[in-house]
C-alpha cells in the first residue's frame, strides 16, 4: 500500500463516502483504496459499516456524499448491474442463490452479454443462442469442477447446504471473470476444512487469474494468513491500514474492538 509512486490508479478508490440511515451515520467520511493484485482484508467491530460500504460500492445504495472510483473512473452513480459491468463483483454475507434453478443454471446465468438475453434473438437467431449456450455450459462445468460441485450440477440451488452455497457464490464470481471481487464474510458458517479450501481458492485465483479481492472477515486466522494489507474500519471510518502483524499489535485497533467495554469500565 505504501508504494504510491505507482502511477496507475488503484483498482478501487473510495473517497469521503458518507451514508446516513435516518439519524444513524453508517458511513462517516470513509476513504480507502485497494491496489491491484492484492487480497485486502476489511475488518472492524460489528456495526463498523463494512457491509454498508460494500453496498455503496456496488451501487445497491446511493451515498449521501463522496465518490467511488475504479481505475480512476467514477462509478458512484451506476446501478448494481452497471458496477458489475465495470468488473466489480460481490458475494453476500448470507448466500443469495436462485433457489428454483439448478446449480448449473445459477452459474450459467452470470455470464454477461448473452445473445439469448434479448428475447427476440430466441426467435430470430436460435442457432447463435444455442451455440453460445453450449459454450457457457462448458465453462460452467469447468467452474463446477473447480469448486467441486459437479455432482450437484442438476440439483436445485435452494437445496444446497450453507457451505455449498458459499462455494456456489464463489463459482458465480468465476463465471463473471471480474477484476475486483468484494467478499462479504466468505468463511462465516463454514467449517475449518471448507474454510481452508476457500482461502486456498482465493489465493489461487489471485495468483493465476490476477483477480483483486477485498474481503470482510471476522475470522482473524483467515485474515492474518490471507490478507495483506488489512484495513480496519470503525464507526464508519477507516481507522488504520497496514500489514497483518502491524494491525494485530496496534493498540488503536484493540481499542476499537474492545473499547466499548474497557471505556465503560
Amino acid at each position, binding site marked *: 500500500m505504501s508504494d504510491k509512486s505507482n502511477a496507475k490508479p488503484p483498482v478501487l478508490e473510495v473517497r469521503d463516502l458518507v451514508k446516513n440511515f435516518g439519524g444513524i451515520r453508517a458511513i462517516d467520511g470513509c476513504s480507502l483504496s485497494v491496489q491491484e493484485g492484492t487480497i485486502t482484508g476489511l475488518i472492524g467491530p460489528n456495526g463498523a459499516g463494512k457491509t454498508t460500504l460494500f453496498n455503496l460500492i456496488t451501487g445497491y445504495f446511493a451515498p449521501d456524499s463522496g465518490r467511488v472510483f475504479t481505475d480512476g473512473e467514477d462509478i458512484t452513480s451506476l446501478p*448494481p448491474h452497471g458496477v458489475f459491468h465495470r468488473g466489480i463483483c460481490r458475494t453476500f454475507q448470507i448466500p*443469495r442463490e436462485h*433457489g428454483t434453478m439448478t446449480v448449473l443454471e445459477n452459474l450459467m446465468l452470470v455470464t454477461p452479454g448473452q445473445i439469448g438475453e434479448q428475447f427476440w434473438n430466441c426467435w430470430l437467431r436460435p442457432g447463435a443462442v444455442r451455440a453460445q449456450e453450449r459454450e457457457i455450459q462448458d465453462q460452467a462445468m469447468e467452474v463446477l469442477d473447480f469448486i467441486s460441485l459437479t455432482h450437484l450440477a*442438476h440439483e436445485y440451488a435452494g437445496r444446497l447446504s450453507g457451505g455449498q452455497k458459499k462455494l456456489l457464490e464463489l463459482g458465480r464470481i468465476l463465471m*463473471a471473470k471480474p477484476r475486483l471481487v468484494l467478499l462479504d464474510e466468505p468463511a462465516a458458517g463454514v467449517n475449518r476444512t471448507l474454510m481452508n479450501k476457500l482461502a486456498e481458492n482465493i489465493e489461487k485465483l489471485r495468483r493465476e487469474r490476477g483477480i483483486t479481492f477485498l474481503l470482510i472477515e471476522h475470522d482473524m486466522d483467515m485474515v492474518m494468513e490471507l490478507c495483506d494489507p488489512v484495513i480496519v474500519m470503525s464507526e464508519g471510518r477507516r481507522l488504520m491500514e497496514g500489514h497483518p502483524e502491524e494491525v494485530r499489535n496496534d493498540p488503536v485497533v484493540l481499542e476499537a474492538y474492545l473499547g466499548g467495554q474497557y471505556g465503560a469500565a
Partner: protein
Amino acid sequence: MQQIDLARSAFLFLPLFLLGLLILPGRAALRIIAALVLAALIGWGLPQMLDRGTLTYLVSFSTMAGIYAILSLGLNSQWGLAGHVNFGVAGFFAVGAFTSALFTTTMPEGALAAYSQQAFGLQWPFLGGVIMAGILAAIVGFFISIPVLRLRTDFLAIATLGIAEVIRFIFQNERWLANGPQPMRGIPRPLDCLFKDPACSWLPPGAAEFLEPLSPRDYVFFYLIVVSLILAVVFIALERISRSPWGRMLRAVRDEENSASMNGKNVFWRRIESFVVGCFIMGVGGAVYAHYVVSIDYSHFNPLFATFIIWVMLMLGGSGNNKGAILGAFAVWGVWSGAAFMIDIASPALQLISDDLPTRGAYLRWMLVALLLGVIVLYRPQGILSERKKVSDFMTDDDEPQ
C-alpha cells in the same frame, strides 16, 4: 354419415391435431403421426357419438376456453416467469378487445351515427386487428409498467387492479371512443361468409357445395380453428422465449432480485419486458374474444370475470408452466360451465332450501371457483403441472431427466 356431420368433422380436425401435438409424449415425428391419426379418428367419431347440439356446445366451450388459455399464457409471462402480481388482466384484455373492434369495424354513418359512436373504424382485416390489439395493449402496458413496476407483490396487485378499473371506466364513460356505456356492435367475424348462403364468391364450387349444409350457427366450428391456431402460435412463441437465457434471467429476478442485479442483470428492464410481453398476449386474447362475441361493452371486463378467473386458471394449471396455463384454462372453464348444469339440475333441491335460491344459483358458481382456489393454494400450490427444473432449452441435452 350425413354431409353436415362430415363438414363439421372436417372443421374439428385441425384443433384436435394441435391438441394431440400438445399433449402426446415422444419424439417429434412420431407425435405428428400419432396426432394426425388420433385427430382424424376423434374428429370423425365425435359427430357420430354426440348429438348436434351437444357437439356445438362442446365446440363453443372449447373456443371460450381457448380464449382464456391465451389470457392465461399472458399472465404466465408476468406472474409465472417474473413474479409480477398483475391483478389488472382485465384492463389489457379490454384494450385488446376494443382496439381490434375499432380497427376492423366500419365507421357508423347516417342515422346510425346518432346512436353508435366510435373514434374510428378502419375496416382492417381480422389479423390486422389482432396484431394492433397486441401492439396497443403492449404500449399501454409499457407506459403503465414504468411507474407501477417499482412496486412489488401486494402493492403491485393493488395498483394494477386500480389501473384495470380506470381502463374499464374510460371505456364506459367516453362515448366518442367506443360507444361508451352502449355495446360496440357489429365486430366482423373472419370469413363468416363460409357459413352464409350463398357462400363466399371466391370459394371453389366443390368447397362451397361441401359447406352448403352448414348454417351461420355452425360458425363456431371455424372459429375454434382460428382460436387454436392463434393459441398455438402464442404458446410456441412464449415457450421459446421462456425456456431460454431470457427466461432464465426472469426466473433469477423472480427468485432473488438483488442477486440478479449484482450479477449484472438489468432487473428494471427485464421486469418491464416480461410485463409488456404478457400485455401483448392479453391484448391478442382480447381481440380474439371481441371477434367471437361480436358485440362488446365495458361490463365484459370486470375484475371477477376477466382477471380473477384467469388467476385461478393459471394457479390450478401450474404457474410458470405454459402447458399448465392452457390446462388450467380448460379445467376451470369446465368447472365453471359444468357448475351451471349442476345448479340447473339441483334447482328443485335448492328450491326446498329457499324460494329464490335457484335464481341466485349463478352465484354458487363463484363459491365453487373460490373453493377450488382455496384447495389449490392449500394442497398443491405449484399447480397440476409444476414448473420444469431446467430453464433453458437451448442448452445441450444431457443425462438429466426432467
